[in-house]
């Protein structure tokens, strides 16, 4: 029996690859994790006693003026690139499953580049916010914002590292079509990180 045929007829009680069941179970548990963080942000939304605030200017009792802190155009660009990276990773997976090594390596590199841009955007955003006077303990908004987006950013970073290890395997010719599940698992995690941002972006940045 060839490796490919073996993969197509798995001898498990579900008939499905255990690794894929495991990654979906993990993603299911991650839904709960992000639900608590999004809840935390929403229940504390608009309850900060002191600024800086996300959408409104604020003047402190000492007369210091703070502008609204969000930069929507930059985050929109990061959001668009994260969405494109989901497209790129399915194209890489398609290449891996067809045995098209060039497409696999190229699209995977594009995915990693988009992920790196997103992480860079978040590092810039956090640095900028700290310089604007919004620390982790400044107010309720700062604490809940940094916790939610920080954990998401950590997930993106882990996703980039995971995809980079798969990319390294692809470069060395160690990702033939019958091993494409290695990429599919990383891709599923990456898509999950993307769908979480699909929720975070409007909830945190667009809804006042």
């Amino acid at each position: 029996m060839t490796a490919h045929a073996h993969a197509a007829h798995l001898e498990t009680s579900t008939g499905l690859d255990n690794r894929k069941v495991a990654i979906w179970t993990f993603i299911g548990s991650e839904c709960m994790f992000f639900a608590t963080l999004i809840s935390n942000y929403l229940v504390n939304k608009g309850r900060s006693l002191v600024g800086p605030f996300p959408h409104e200017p604020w003047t402190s009792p000492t007369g210091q003026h703070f502008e609204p802190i969000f930069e929507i155009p930059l985050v929109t660009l990061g959001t668009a690139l994260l969405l494109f990276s989901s497209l790129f990773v399915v194209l890489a997976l398609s290449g891996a499953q067809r045995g098209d090594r060039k497409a696999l390596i190229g699209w995977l590199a594009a995915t990693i580049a988009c992920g790196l841009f997103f992480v860079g955007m978040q590092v810039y955003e956090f640095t900028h916010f700290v310089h604007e006077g919004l620390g982790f303990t400044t107010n309720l908004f700062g604490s809940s914002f940094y916790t939610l987006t920080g954990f998401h950013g950590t997930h993106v970073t882990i996703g980039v590292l995971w995809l980079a290890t798969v990319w390294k395997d692809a470069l060395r010719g160690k990702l033939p079509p019958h091993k494409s599940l290695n990429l599919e698992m990383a891709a599923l995690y990456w898509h999950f990180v993307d769908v979480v941002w699909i929720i975070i972006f409007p909830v945190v940045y667009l809804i006042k």
Partner: protein
Amino acid sequence: MESHVSTQGHAHPTASLYFKVGLVLFVLTALEVGLYEITYGEHTGALGPTIKPFFVPLLLLLSAAKFALVGMFYMHLKQDSKLFSGVFVFPLIIAAFIIVALMVLHAYTFAFARSG
């Protein structure tokens, strides 16, 4: 629909469908930001006050559409085993319930604390 076979033996969509979904996702994101701009942003016009009451439901609807598109086509839930859909959707329903329940609970507690 043209497709290729994955390691699990089921058919995955083709590159052209992936591109079409990507385009729809991009348009939906542009709509979200466009709605924000005409309601609260620097380009607020006559439409702003009209859209304001529907702004949050519209954004949630657009997000849900994007979420579903990524789940169905990019995560292959449309083609893959229904077991994966169950393993994903069931916690998702609980997650949505947790968010709504905590918001209601805190809104009630906050209102109660204010009223003394």
